[in-house]
């Protein structure tokens, strides 16, 4: 199993063997963020949240898994994941917003709970302009709570960065609300640029102090008019820098999984800029207009690229990008440099090769559940890069046939058969489980554990996968980690179908 190229989101105590369990948690949390980001990037205020089927499959199991790992393994955030607590969860003395690493204790299980509850709230929202204003109000509360309590050097750009980061990590289904919150922060900067001054101004007159102050509707900021200020200028600069850094990540991604996450993040950041910049001024100056037009093209490209991806996978994404590059070339971009620096949303080197490198052909088990959007990737398989639906019969037949051929075969032949099964059905949880068992039989315990991690990321509600992981960890001499895996097996078994019910 190749380690993901990103920084891990979570860390655990030094428990031998437990890295495998942490890998399941880490991959699932990244996948949840990806699901949020992809939905928000292409969505409107009513449709910017992950599909209900996805949320049902991941909500309870992810929450449960993070809680168990917090208790058993000291699970905590490792990277500075931005967060915003949902209102019912806000209590005195507990951080309400910020970056999970930067302040007081904010455990991953609470983050999971807050995020999914916010998604449920978004689904129940009327989805009109008033709802977007209320969403912007809540986002402003988060941004100001963060700057008032964390005291960053320069409050306005820090608050803008926090909001872009929250949106770009897939945690704001209504991106227009984030754009409005950013624009009004920049408007407010003409009258106040300290954390307390901003909070007092935007909250309606005095600095919020109690939980009630921080969570009641504010809405008085809607009267702020566009005005120029040095702090506002630094805020717009922060917005532009975040959006451009996000675009760069799509061009430097190392594989399809990293690219999908970068694309979702970039589009959410671009939409913050695209929808927010016009609200910061009465009329955009020419330079800002030029920049705005560039971003507009990229937001449009995102929608076309995601449609191409859903329809026919990565090869179609490359084909679409080639068509954009050709059109630019016809307009004067003879060496392709402008496409590469202004418009590309994939690494430009993919456009020159004849066949896609293997790790670019399709998303792997790490991201596919979010990437395909409907929460059941195992019922699909890639064909020429495009996801095609397969019936349960085909899956059962493929697994049965592989198991029959594996039985009695030599170790090398067993490995070949299980590898072939994964090649054909890379998103099929049972294929990874079979691979794990085959590897265990040949004495490759680390490889077996990695394979079961893949199966668990695809289907974390499968008690038998957790049980197999526990057995493998025991065999590897890691009884404490095995105990956690076995505990998960028991909890998941007892919860049964409730885990994924609506």
């Amino acid at each position, binding site marked *: 199993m190749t380690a993901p190229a990103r920084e891990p989101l979570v860390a655990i105590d030094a428990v031998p063997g437990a890295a495998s369990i942490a890998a399941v948690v880490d991959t699932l949390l990244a996948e949840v963020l990806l699901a949020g980001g992809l939905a928000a990037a292409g969505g409107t205020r009513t449709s910017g949240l992950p599909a209900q089927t996805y949320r049902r499959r991941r909500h309870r199991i992810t929450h449960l898994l993070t809680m168990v790992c917090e208790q058993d393994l000291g699970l905590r955030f490792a990277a500075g994941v931005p967060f915003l607590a949902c209102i019912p969860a806000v209590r005195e003395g507990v951080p309400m917003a910020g970056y999970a690493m930067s302040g007081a204790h904010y455990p991953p299980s609470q983050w999971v709970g807050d995020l999914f509850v916010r998604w449920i709230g978004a689904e129940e929202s009327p989805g009109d302009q008033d709802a977007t204003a209320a969403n912007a109000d809540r986002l402003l509360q988060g941004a100001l709570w963060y700057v008032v309590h964390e005291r960053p050097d320069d409050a306005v750009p820090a608050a803008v960065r926090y909001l872009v980061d929250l949106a770009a990590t897939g945690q704001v289904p209504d991106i227009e609300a984030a754009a409005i919150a950013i624009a009004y922060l920049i408007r407010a900067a003409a009258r106040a640029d300290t954390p307390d001054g901003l909070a007092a101004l935007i909250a309606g007159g005095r600095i919020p102090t109690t939980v009630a102050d921080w969570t009641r509707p504010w809405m008085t900021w809607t009267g702020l008019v*566009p*005005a*120029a200020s*040095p702090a*506002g*200028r630094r805020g*717009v*600069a922060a917005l*532009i*820098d975040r959006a*451009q850094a996000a*675009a760069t990540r799509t061009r430097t991604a190392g594989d399809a999984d990293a690219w999908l996450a970068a694309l979702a993040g970039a589009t959410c950041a671009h939409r913050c800029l695209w929808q927010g910049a016009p609200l*910061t*001024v*009465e*009329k*955009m*100056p*020419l*330079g*800002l*207009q*030029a*920049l705005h*037009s*560039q971003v*507009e*093209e990229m937001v*449009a*490209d995102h929608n*076309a690229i995601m449609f191409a991806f859903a329809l026919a996978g990565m090869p179609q994404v490359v084909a679409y990008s080639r*068509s*954009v590059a050709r*059109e*630019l070339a*016809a*307009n*004067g*971009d003879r060496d392709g*440099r*402008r496409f590469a*620096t*202004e*418009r590309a949303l994939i690494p430009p080197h993919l456009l020159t090769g004849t066949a896609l490198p293997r790790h670019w052909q399709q998303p792997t088990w790490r991201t596919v559940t979010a990437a395909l959007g409907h929460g059941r990737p195992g019922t699909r398989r890639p064909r020429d890069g495009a996801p095609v639906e397969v019936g349960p019969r085909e899956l059962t037949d493929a697994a049965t046939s592989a198991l029959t051929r594996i039985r009695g075969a030599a170790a090398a032949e067993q490995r070949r058969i299980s590898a072939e099964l994964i090649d054909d059905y890379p998103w099929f949880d049972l294929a990874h489980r079979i691979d794990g068992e085959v590897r265990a039989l040949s004495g490759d315990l680390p490889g077996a554990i990695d394979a079961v991690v893949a199966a668990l990321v695809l289907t974390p509600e499968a008690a038998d996968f957790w049980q197999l992981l526990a057995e493998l960890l025991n065999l590897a001499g890691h009884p404490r980690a095995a105990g956690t895996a076995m505990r998960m097996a028991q909890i998941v078994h007892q919860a049964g179908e409730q885990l994924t019910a609506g």
Partner: protein
Amino acid sequence: MHVLSFALVLEEVGAVGKGSGGNIRDLDSLFDDERLERLREHARAFCFLAFHGTADTAIADYVRGGTLGDDTPADLMVLFVLDQPAPVATPVGDDSLREWVTIDRGGHPAYRMVRELFDDPPALPGLVVFEELTLGSEVAYLPLGHLRTRQDALQELRDLFALIGEVSAAAKPGKFLDDLGVALHQRGSDYTRTGRRPLREWLRRGFTLARENSGEIVTMVNFFS
């Protein structure tokens, strides 16, 4: 401070409907009359700040200081040569304008551009001021070599930009450089003035010169009107 290629600004000025190709245009097609005329709706006057990024430290440090956008009135467009491409908003800060350390003053694109405008090349660094790009236009030139520190440059250029902005706002069509001459004379500023010059072609050649050195003629991305 963020800057952007002046070519992109010209593309935006001429944008008519957008397709998947965006506004992107061949450089040659950017300098048409209609586009340059529309640019006048956004800028009453233009300045070209000519300096060497590592040799003319007072001016370069002032630009690196990032207040150029704040110091420029909304209807004055300031251009300068950046030593890197700027196809997207590009931040200018302490580390900027240090790439062309090996290019001497004689070979620097900005210096070469100024020399093209004069039969008798003036002392550099300096500020080229003109009213428009379509017709052949006269040019005023203010040498800035006497500025010794970043603070000197900040004070002088802030005052000059404000003055140029005021004069251009009040001037009758075609009278801008005359009025500016009077104002500069009253201020006691040293300046020279050329006859008519084909500025469109001059700027077009400037683009090529800058790009031959992997640079760009840029202008500030002002965030507020």
